[in-house]
C-alpha cells in the first residue's frame, strides 16, 4: 500500500512491483499540436482505493484519464505507460481497449449530454452495457436496469426505461450516466465532476452510494472535482494538479490538516468557511498559465507568495515530506510552509 503516488525519480517508487497495484501510470505525457499539456504523471491505484483529483480548470484532470482510457482525439500525442494488472493499455488495439473500457475501467464524463446517445432510449443504452460486459440477456436486462436506476435514485425508474435523454433534466441524465458506468461492474470507476449539476442532498446520496459500492465490491474510485469539500468527504487520498503536473499528493486528512504546497494552501484559503466567523475571501493572485506559455521553472511561481529566485529556474520534483505525503515545492515543507500554515489555519478557523 506504500508509495501510492509519485512523480519523483522512479527508483524511489518501485511502482510496478508494489503489491495490490491495480492500475499503474508512469511518465504519462500528452501533447496537442506540439504543445505539452500533461507533463509527466505517475500514479498507482490499488483495489478498493478512492483517489480524489483537484485543481483549477485546465490543470489536466480530465486529460489524464482520457489519455489513460485511450479516449483522446487522434490529434493528441500520448506517451508513457498505463498498466492494468500489469498489462500495457497505451497503444493496444481499439477492439481490445473497447472490452476494457466500460468493463474493467469505466468513466463518468464531465458533460453527460455528450456521452449519452440522444436518439436511443436510456434503458436501452444501459442495457447494451449490461449485455456486452455482464452477459445479461432477455428480460433480465430490464430488471437489472431498473435495479441500477433505483440504485442511483432516478425517480420513477420503471417508466424512465423508455425515456430519451432530452426528456430528463441535467441532473437525471447525470444519474443515468452513473448507472451506465456501474452496469459493467468495473474494477476502476473514474468519475469526472459527477455531481456538479446536482443539489447537495442528491450529491450526498450519490457520493454515499459510490462509497458503499467501493467498500462492498473493491472497486477503485477516482473522483475528479474542483470542489475540495466533495473529494475530502469521499476520498482517502488526494492528488492536487497544476499546470499538467501533480504538485501535491497525500492522504485526505493530512492534506487538509497540513497542506504543504503553496498552491494547495491557496486553494484551501480561497474556500468560503461554513463554520465560525465570516471573513473576506482570499483568492489566489493571478491566473492559471496557458499550456503554451508555461513558465520555465515551477509552474506556480508567477502566483506564489513564497517564490524564491531559484523557483523560476528549476522545476521542483515531487518529494516526500512525511509518510505518504508528497509535495513539489522547492521552499519545502519544513520552514517556510510551516509559517504560512499558521496563517492559513487561522484563516480556516
Amino acid at each position: 500500500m506504500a508509495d501510492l503516488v509519485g512523480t519523483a525519480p522512479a527508483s524511489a517508487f518501485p511502482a510496478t512491483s508494489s503489491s495490490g497495484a491495480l492500475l499503474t501510470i508512469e511518465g504519462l505525457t500528452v501533447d496537442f499540436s506540439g504543445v505539452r499539456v500533461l507533463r509527466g504523471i505517475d500514479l498507482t491505484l490499488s483495489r478498493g482505493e478512492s483517489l480524489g483529483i483537484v485543481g483549477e480548470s485546465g490543470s489536466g484532470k480530465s486529460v489524464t484519464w482520457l489519455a489513460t482510457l485511450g479516449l483522446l482525439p487522434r490529434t493528441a500525442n500520448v506517451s508513457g505507460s498505463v498498466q492494468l494488472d500489469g498489462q500495457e493499455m497505451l497503444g493496444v488495439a481499439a477492439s481490445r481497449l473497447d472490452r476494457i473500457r466500460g468493463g474493467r475501467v469505466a468513466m463518468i464524463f464531465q458533460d453527460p449530454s455528450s456521452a449519452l446517445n440522444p436518439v436511443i432510449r436510456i434503458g436501452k443504452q444501459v442495457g447494451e452495457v449490461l449485455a456486452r460486459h455482464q452477459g445479461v440477456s432477455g428480460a433480465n436486462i430490464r430488471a437489472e436496469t431498473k435495479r441500477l436506476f433505483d440504485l442511483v435514485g432516478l425517480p420513477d425508474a420503471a417508466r424512465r426505461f423508455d425515456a430519451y435523454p432530452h426528456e430528463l433534466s441535467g441532473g437525471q441524465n447525470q444519474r443515468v450516466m452513473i448507472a451506465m458506468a456501474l452496469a459493467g461492474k468495473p474494477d476502476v470507476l473514474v468519475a469526472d465532476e459527477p455531481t456538479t449539476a446536482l443539489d447537495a442532498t442528491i450529491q450526498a446520496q450519490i457520493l454515499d452510494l459510490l462509497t458503499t459500492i467501493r467498500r462492498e465490491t473493491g472497486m477503485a474510485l477516482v473522483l475528479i472535482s474542483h470542489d475540495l469539500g466533495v473529494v475530502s468527504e469521499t476520498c482517502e487520498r488526494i492528488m492536487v494538479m497544476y499546470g499538467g503536473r501533480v504538485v501535491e499528493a497525500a492522504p485526505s486528512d493530512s492534506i487538509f490538516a497540513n497542506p504543504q504546497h503553496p498552491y494547495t494552501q491557496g486553494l484551501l484559503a480561497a474556500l468560503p468557511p461554513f463554520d465560525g466567523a465570516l471573513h473576506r475571501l482570499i483568492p489566489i493572485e493571478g491566473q492559471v498559465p496557458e499550456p503554451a506559455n508555461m513558465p520555465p521553472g515551477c509552474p506556480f511561481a508567477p502566483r506564489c507568495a513564497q517564490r524564491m529566485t531559484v523557483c523560476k529556474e528549476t522545476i521542483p520534483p515531487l518529494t516526500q515530506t512525511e509518510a505518504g505525503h508528497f509535495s513539489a515545492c522547492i521552499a519545502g515543507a519544513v520552514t517556510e510552509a510551516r509559517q504560512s500554515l499558521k496563517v492559513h489555519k487561522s484563516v480556516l478557523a
Partner: protein
Amino acid sequence: MTENILELHGISRTYSTRQGLFGRKVPVHAVDEVSLSLQPGQTLALVGESGSGKSTTGRIALGLELPNSGHVLFRGAELPPAHTSAWRRMRTHMQMIYQDPLAVLDRRLSILDQVREPLDIHDIGSASERNNKALAMLDAVGLNANYASSLPHQLSGGQRQRAVLARALIMQPALLVCDEPVSALDVSIQAQVVNLLMDLQKDLRLSLLFISHDLKVVRQVSQRIAVMYLGRIVEYGETNLLLSNPTHPYTKALVSAVPVAGRRTRERIILKGEPPNPADRPTGCAFHPRCPVVRPECVSVSPTFSTLPDGRSVACHAVDAAQPTKEVGI
C-alpha cells in the same frame, strides 16, 4: 422599517409538459404560492433542490416571465407589462446575471463595446462620456483598460463574469438577480467574484436576489435565506439562524449535506427514497416520501407556515407540534 425594494405576493407558475412521446399533457407546478420580500441593500438567497423553481422565481421577479397568479411589486409598484417601454425603463433598474457568462456575451464584440452597449441603447450622454463611463465601470470590477479591447474568449472565466457584472451594473440598477453566478467558477475565481459582488453592494447599495445551491457561498453573501422544495418555500429566515439551527427537515438535510473540506462537525443526513417528480407532486407535504420524521397527517394535509420566536417561517407539521414546548422553554 425601510420599504422593500422587491415583494412577491403569492406567485404561482405552471408549465404544461407532455409525459412520454404520446403521453397526455401534465401540469408542472414550477412555483406555487411563493411570497418573498427584499430590503434595499440586502441579499436574499434562494436555495433548494434542483428543479424546485428558483430560476423561475428569479425570472418572475424581473418580469421576464409572468406568473399565472399573484403579483410582483418593485419599489411598491406593480411591474408594467413585459416588453412595453415602461417595462424597459424599469428593467434598467433590475438586472440579471446567469451562470454561464459566455452565453450572455457577444463573441464578436469587444468587452468595452458590450459594457457600453446599454448606454448606447438608452442614448445616455455623449459618445465620449459613454466610453469613459464604461471604462470606469470596467475598472470598478477590476478589469483594467488593457482588457477593454479584448474579445470574450480572450478572457478567463472570472474575467468574463466580471465583464458581465460591469455590463449589468452600468445602468446603476437597484436590484440584481444572480442565478448561480459563481457555480461554474474555480474556487479562486469564485472568491474574486464573491468579494467583488459584496464590495459593489456596499458601494452602490445594491439589492441582491442570489440563487445558488452552494450554501458556503450563500452564508458568505446573504442576510436572509428562503429554502424551496418542489415549488414552495419551506423555510424562510435569517441566514445565520437557518444554517446554524435549521428547523425544517429538508433544510436540515440540505445543511448537513454541505461538503466541507477537512473534518466535518455535523452528522450528515442522507435522504432515502426518490427525489421528487414535479409532474407527480406528492399529496400533503411534498417532502413526505423522503422525510425522516414524517407523521401520519403529512401524507394528506399540506403544512402551513408558522412563525417561530426567532422570526423565521417554517412549513412543517413536526415543527408545529414542537412549537408550544419551545415557547415554554424560552
